[in-house]
C-alpha cells in the first residue's frame, strides 16, 4: 500500500459517517438509472426496480466490501469503542463522577507537588544560556560560603582569568525598601543591588526602556537609577508605557526609573523576585542598616555574591587558579595554628547555576519529596477504589458480555473495549487533575509563604509537568483497569448464559476486591501514622514555655529619620526621646497591656551584634581569631521587653534610671549565656566585660529564660540585653512590641493612630503579630503537618468508601440468598453479623499488613527524615493508637451503613426481582 492510499484510508476512518452517506447516495443514483433503463425497455416500474437490484448485485455486500477497503478497521474499532465508552459513562453519571473526581483529586495533588518540585529544583533560569552560568563560592577553613566583601569582588573582577564576573547583593542582607511614588507612602518593596555588567552577563533584554549598564556603576552614590521588575511594573504602575523617566523614592532618596525587565526574569534566586534592581554603587542610600560598605567596607559583611560565565575554552580549574591568589591577598589572614587545624588554603570554586540558586531548595526539597510520596499513596488508594468500581461494573455487565461473545465477538475486541473505557476515564481524570493542580499549586505556595517575603515561583506548567501528568494518568489507568478487563472477558458462555441474572456463584472478582480493600486499609494506616508524626513534630517545635499568646503581640518596625546614623552627635538622645514618647502614647491606648522596644526581632536573631564569649563573661567582637568561640547576640531593649514578650525573668528588669543617658552600665543575660560564661554560678551581680570600643563593664542584673522563637531545632543562642544608650551598635532602628488584651484586629488601627500621633515622621512598616513573624520559621513543618494530615484523612475517606462499596456489593450479590433466609425466619441481626464479620476481617487484615510497612517506615524516617522530624521517640505509641482508633471508627461507620442497607432488604422485593 502506498503512503498516499494509507493516508487516504486513515482520513476516511475519521469521516466515516459522511462518506457512508455519500456512498448511499451514489448507489441509489446508480440503481435509479438502472431502473430507468429497464423501464425504457418496457418493464413496469416495480419490475424495473427488481431487475435493477438483480443487475447490481448484493447491495449490502458491495457496501461492506467498499467500507472495508476504504478505511482502517483498527482505527474505526477504536473510534467506535470511544463513542461506546462515552455513552456508557453518560448513562451512569454517578459512577462516572465518582471515578473521575477520585482520580482528578489524586492526580491533581500529585501534579501540584511535582510542579513545586520542578519549579524549585529543575527549571532553568530564563536567561541566556543558563547552562554555562556558575556561582562563585569560596572555601575558607573548610567551610564553603558564597558571600564576598565589596573590595574582594572588585579585586576579583579586575583579574583577567578568562571568566566574566557579575556581582549582586546577597539575600542574606535583604533589601526591604520603603517606597514612595508621587509623594504617597507605599508598602515596602524588595530590591537587589547589581553590578553594571549583571544584565549583560545574563543576556537579559529589557521590555521597556533600558537596563543598568557599566556606566551606571562607577561612582558611589552617583547613579540614582532603578530598573523595575515586570511584576512590580504591572502591580503598581499598571504597565504604564511612559514608565521610563518616572521618579521613585526609595528610603528617602530619589531614583529615576530607566526600564523594566522582561516578564519571565526574576533574578537568579529561585523563590525570590526583587521588585526593583539598583546599581551597586547606590548601596549606602538603600542599605542604611549596615553602613556604607563600598567606601568603608567591613570585613565581616560579605554581602556580595558573584556570578560567573567562563569564556569558551577556559576550564574551571584554570579560572580558579588565576583568581585564588588575588582572593588570598584580599582576605584577612588566619592564624597559622587555626589554619593548620581546619584545613587547606583558601580556594575559589565554581558551582553550576543553571537552575538558579535557592535556599528554598535546601529547605523544602526533602519535605516536597515526602509530600509526593504521600499523595502518591493517596492516588494508589484512589485507584484501588476505581478498580473496585470497575469490577462491580464489569460484573453487572456480564449478561451483555456473554451475549456478545455468543454472537461471535472476539474476546480481544471485548477486552479492547473495556481497556478503552478505562483509558477514557483515566484521560478525564488526568484532565481534571491537571486543572486542579494549577489551583492547588498556588494554594500550597501561598501557604508556604507565611514569612516576611512571599515566595515567587514560576508555576506555569512546562513539558516536564505535562509529561508527569500524562504518565501518572496512564499508570493509574493501567493499575485500575487491568484486573477488571481480564475479568470482563473471562466469561464462560455456556455456564453464564443460563444464570444471567447472577447467583451466589457469580461472585467473581470479590477476591480481588477484598485484596484491594485490605491494601487500602494498610496504606491508609501508614499514612495516618506518618501524618501523626509530622503533626507531633510541629507541636514539639511550637510549644514554648512562654505564657503569652503569639497572636496577641504586635510587632512594628519603626525607623525615624536619622535612625541609621545612630553614631551622629545628639542622635541617640533624639531617638530615645522619640521612642519613649512613642511607647508612652501607645501604652495609653485602650486594649494595650504593655509596650516595649527592642532592636532585634525574635524571628531573626542573627541581626543582633555578634560577639564572642569567653568563660568568665568577657565578650568581644567577632573576628578571625574568635571564629571557633561560642558567639552571643547583643541586643538593645527597653524595659518591659520580657513582660511584653512573655519571657520569664529572674532578678530584675531595667528601670527608668538604667535607661537614662550616663547611667552605670547594666545588662540582662539569658540562660544560654550563663551556661557558657558562668557555668554553675549565679551571674547576678557579676560583670560582663565588653572589650569593644568603648570598653564597658556591665553589671548583670537579671537572667532571662531562653527564647525559643527563632530556631526551635538549634541550640538556643546566648543573648546579652542592654539598655538603648549603652548598646554598641550603629543601628538606631527599633522594633515596637505591643501586648494586647483583646483581638488584634480591633486594636491595630488605634495602635497605628497612636504611633502617628506620637511622631508623624516615623515611617511604619507593616504591623504584624508575633505569630506571623515567628511562624515563618516553621513553615516547612506546618506545611508537612497540614498537608499530610489532610491527605491522610482523604485516604481514610476513600478507604471507607471502598470498604462500604465492597460490603454493599457483597450484600447485593447475596441478595437472593439473604432474602430467602429472612423469609424463612432468620433474624435481621444475622445479616448484620454477616456484614460486620466481613468488615472486621478486612480491617483486621489491613492493620496486620500495615505493621511491616510501618516498621520499614520507621527505619527509613530515622535515617532519612531526621532533619524533618523533631523530638520523637522511636516507639511513638500514641500516634499509632490514635491512627488505629480512627481507622476502626471509620471502618465501623462504613460497615454499619452497609449493614443497615443489608438488613433492610425486603424479601418480597428481592425475590420478585428475579
Amino acid at each position, binding site marked *: 500500500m*502506498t503512503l*498516499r*492510499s494509507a493516508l*487516504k*484510508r486513515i482520513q476516511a476512518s475519521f469521516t466515516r459517517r459522511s462518506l457512508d452517506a*455519500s*456512498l448511499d*447516495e*451514489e*448507489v441509489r*443514483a*446508480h440503481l*435509479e*438509472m*438502472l431502473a*430507468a*433503463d429497464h423501464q425504457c425497455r418496457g418493464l413496469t416500474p416495480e419490475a424495473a426496480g427488481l431487475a435493477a437490484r438483480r*443487475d*447490481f*448485485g*448484493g*447491495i449490502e455486500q*458491495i457496501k461492506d*466490501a*467498499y467500507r472495508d*477497503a*476504504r478505511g482502517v478497521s483498527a482505527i474505526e474499532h477504536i473510534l467506535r469503542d470511544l463513542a461506546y465508552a462515552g455513552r456508557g459513562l453518560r448513562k451512569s453519571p454517578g459512577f462516572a463522577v465518582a471515578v473521575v473526581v477520585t482520580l482528578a483529586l489524586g492526580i491533581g495533588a500529585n501534579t501540584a507537588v511535582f510542579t513545586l518540585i520542578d519549579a524549585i529544583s529543575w527549571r532553568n533560569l530564563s536567561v541566556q544560556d543558563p547552562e554555562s552560568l556558575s556561582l562563585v563560592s569560596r572555601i575558607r577553613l573548610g567551610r564553603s560560603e558564597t558571600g564576598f566583601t565589596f573590595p574582594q569582588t572588585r579585586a576579583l573582577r579586575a583579574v583577567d582569568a578568562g571568566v566574566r564576573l557579575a556581582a549582586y547583593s546577597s539575600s542574606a542582607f535583604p533589601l526591604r525598601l520603603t517606597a514612595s511614588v508621587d509623594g504617597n507612602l507605599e508598602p515596602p518593596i524588595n530590591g537587589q543591588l547589581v553590578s553594571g555588567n549583571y544584565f549583560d552577563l545574563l543576556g537579559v533584554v529589557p521590555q521597556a526602556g533600558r537596563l543598568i549598564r557599566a556606566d551606571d556603576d562607577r561612582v558611589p552614590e552617583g547613579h540614582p537609577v532603578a530598573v523595575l521588575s515586570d511584576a512590580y511594573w504591572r502591580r503598581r504602575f499598571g504597565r504604564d508605557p511612559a514608565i521610563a523617566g518616572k521618579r521613585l523614592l526609595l528610603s528617602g532618596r530619589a531614583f529615576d526609573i530607566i526600564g523594566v525587565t522582561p516578564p519571565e526574569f526574576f533574578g537568579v534566586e529561585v523563590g525570590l523576585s526583587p521588585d526593583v534592581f539598583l546599581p551597586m554603587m547606590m548601596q549606602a542610600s538603600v542599605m542604611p542598616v549596615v553602613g556604607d560598605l563600598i567606601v568603608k567596607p567591613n570585613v565581616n559583611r560579605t554581602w556580595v555574591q558573584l556570578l560567573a560565565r567562563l569564556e569558551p575554552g577556559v576550564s574551571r580549574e584554570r579560572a580558579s587558579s588565576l583568581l585564588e591568589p588575588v582572593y588570598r591577598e584580599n582576605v584577612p589572614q588566619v592564624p597559622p595554628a587555626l589554619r593548620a587545624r581546619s584545613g587547606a588554603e583558601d580556594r575559589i570554586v565554581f558551582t553550576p547555576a543553571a537552575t538558579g540558586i535557592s535556599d528554598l531548595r535546601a529547605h523544602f526539597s526533602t519535605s516536597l519529596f515526602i509530600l509526593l510520596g504521600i499523595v502518591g499513596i493517596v492516588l494508589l488508594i484512589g485507584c484501588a477504589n476505581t478498580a473496585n468500581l470497575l469490577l462491580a461494573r464489569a460484573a453487572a455487565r456480564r449478561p451483555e458480555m456473554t451475549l456478545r461473545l455468543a454472537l461471535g465477538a472476539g474476546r480481544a475486541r471485548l477486552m479492547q473495549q473495556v481497556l478503552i473505557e478505562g483509558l477514557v476515564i483515566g484521560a478525564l481524570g488526568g484532565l481534571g487533575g491537571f486543572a486542579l493542580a494549577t489551583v492547588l499549586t498556588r494554594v500550597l505556595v501561598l501557604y508556604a509563604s507565611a514569612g516576611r517575603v512571599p515566595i515567587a515561583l514560576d508555576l506555569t506548567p512546562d513539558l516536564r509537568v505535562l509529561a508527569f501528568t500524562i504518565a501518572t494518568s496512564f499508570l493509574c489507568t493501567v493499575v485500575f483497569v487491568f484486573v477488571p478487563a481480564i475479568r470482563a472477558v473471562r466469561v464462560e458462555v455456556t455456564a453464564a448464559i443460563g444464570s444471567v441474572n447472577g447467583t451466589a456463584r457469580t461472585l467473581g472478582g470479590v477476591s480481588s476486591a477484598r485484596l484491594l480493600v485490605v491494601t487500602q486499609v494498610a496504606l491508609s494506616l501508614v499514612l495516618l501514622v506518618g501524618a501523626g508524626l509530622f503533626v507531633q513534630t510541629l507541636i514539639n517545635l511550637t510549644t514554648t514555655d512562654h505564657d503569652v499568646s503569639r497572636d496577641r503581640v504586635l510587632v512594628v518596625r519603626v525607623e525615624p529619620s536619622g535612625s541609621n546614623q545612630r553614631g551622629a552627635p545628639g542622635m541617640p538622645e533624639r531617638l530615645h526621646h522619640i521612642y519613649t514618647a512613642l511607647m508612652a502614647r501607645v501604652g495609653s491606648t485602650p486594649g494595650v497591656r504593655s509596650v516595649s522596644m527592642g532592636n532585634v526581632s525574635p524571628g531573626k536573631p542573627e541581626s543582633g551584634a555578634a560577639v564572642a564569649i569567653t568563660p568568665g563573661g568577657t565578650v568581644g567582637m567577632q573576628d578571625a581569631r574568635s571564629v571557633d568561640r561560642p558567639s552571643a547576640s547583643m541586643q538593645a531593649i527597653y524595659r518591659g521587653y520580657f513582660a511584653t514578650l512573655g519571657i520569664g525573668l529572674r532578678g530584675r528588669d531595667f528601670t527608668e534610671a538604667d535607661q537614662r543617658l550616663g547611667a552605670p552600665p547594666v545588662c540582662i543575660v539569658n540562660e544560654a549565656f550563663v551556661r557558657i560564661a558562668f557555668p554553675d554560678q549565679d551571674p547576678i551581680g557579676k560583670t560582663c566585660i565588653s572589650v569593644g570600643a568603648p570598653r564597658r563593664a556591665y553589671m548583670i542584673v537579671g537572667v532571662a529564660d531562653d527564647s525559643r522563637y527563632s530556631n526551635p531545632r538549634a541550640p538556643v543562642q546566648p543573648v546579652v540585653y542592654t539598655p538603648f544608650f549603652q548598646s554598641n551598635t550603629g543601628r538606631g532602628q527599633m522594633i515596637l512590641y505591643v501586648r494586647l488584651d483583646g483581638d488584634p484586629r480591633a486594636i491595630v488601627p488605634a495602635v497605628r493612630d497612636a504611633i502617628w500621633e506620637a511622631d508623624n515622621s516615623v515611617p511604619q512598616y507593616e504591623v504584624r503579630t508575633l505569630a506571623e513573624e515567628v511562624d515563618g520559621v516553621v513553615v516547612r513543618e506546618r506545611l508537612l503537618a497540614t498537608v499530610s494530615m489532610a491527605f491522610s484523612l482523604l485516604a481514610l475517606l476513600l478507604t471507607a468508601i471502598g470498604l462500604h462499596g465492597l460490603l454493599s456489593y457483597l450484600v447485593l450479590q447475596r441478595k437472593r440468598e439473604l432474602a430467602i433466609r429472612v423469609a424463612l425466619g432468620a433474624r435481621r441481626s444475622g445479616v448484620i453479623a454477616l456484614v460486620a464479620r466481613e468488615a472486621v476481617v478486612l480491617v483486621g487484615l489491613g492493620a496486620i499488613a500495615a505493621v511491616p510497612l510501618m516498621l520499614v517506615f520507621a527505619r527509613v524516617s530515622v535515617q532519612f527524615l531526621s532533619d524533618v522530624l523533631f523530638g520523637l521517640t522511636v516507639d511513638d505509641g500514641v500516634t499509632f493508637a490514635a491512627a488505629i482508633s480512627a481507622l476502626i471508627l471509620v471502618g465501623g461507620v462504613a460497615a454499619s451503613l452497609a449493614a443497615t442497607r443489608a438488613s433492610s432488604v425486603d424479601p418480597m422485593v428481592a425475590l420478585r426481582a428475579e
Partner: protein
Amino acid sequence: MSPPSAEVPYGALDLMVLKTLDAMGPQHGYGIARRIEQMAEGMLALNQGTIYPALLRLEQKGWIESDWGTSENNRRARFYSITRAGRKQLALEADLWSRTVAMMSRMLGEPSS
C-alpha cells in the same frame, strides 16, 4: 459463443475502468458499468455494483478523481475522471497485457504432439 463468465480478473476490471474513462471522459458509476457491459458484448455478466470497490481502489491510488455533478436525467451523481497518472498507468498496463497475451498465444499456439 462461450458461456458468460461471472468472474473478472482483479486487475482487469481496474484496467477496463481506466480505459473507459480515458475513452469516454468523465462518467458516473452507472455509465462506466454499462459501457463495460457493452464492450464485453455479452462475454461478461458483471454485477454492476462490483465496480465501486474498484473505483475506490483507483481513487486511493490517485489514478482517477471524482466530483459531484448532475447526470442526464437531472440527478445528483458522482462523476469520475482519469488523471494524468492514471493515463500513464493505463498505457503501462495496456502494454503489459498485450505482451502477456502475445506470450501466452505463442505458448498455447505450440502444436501439441
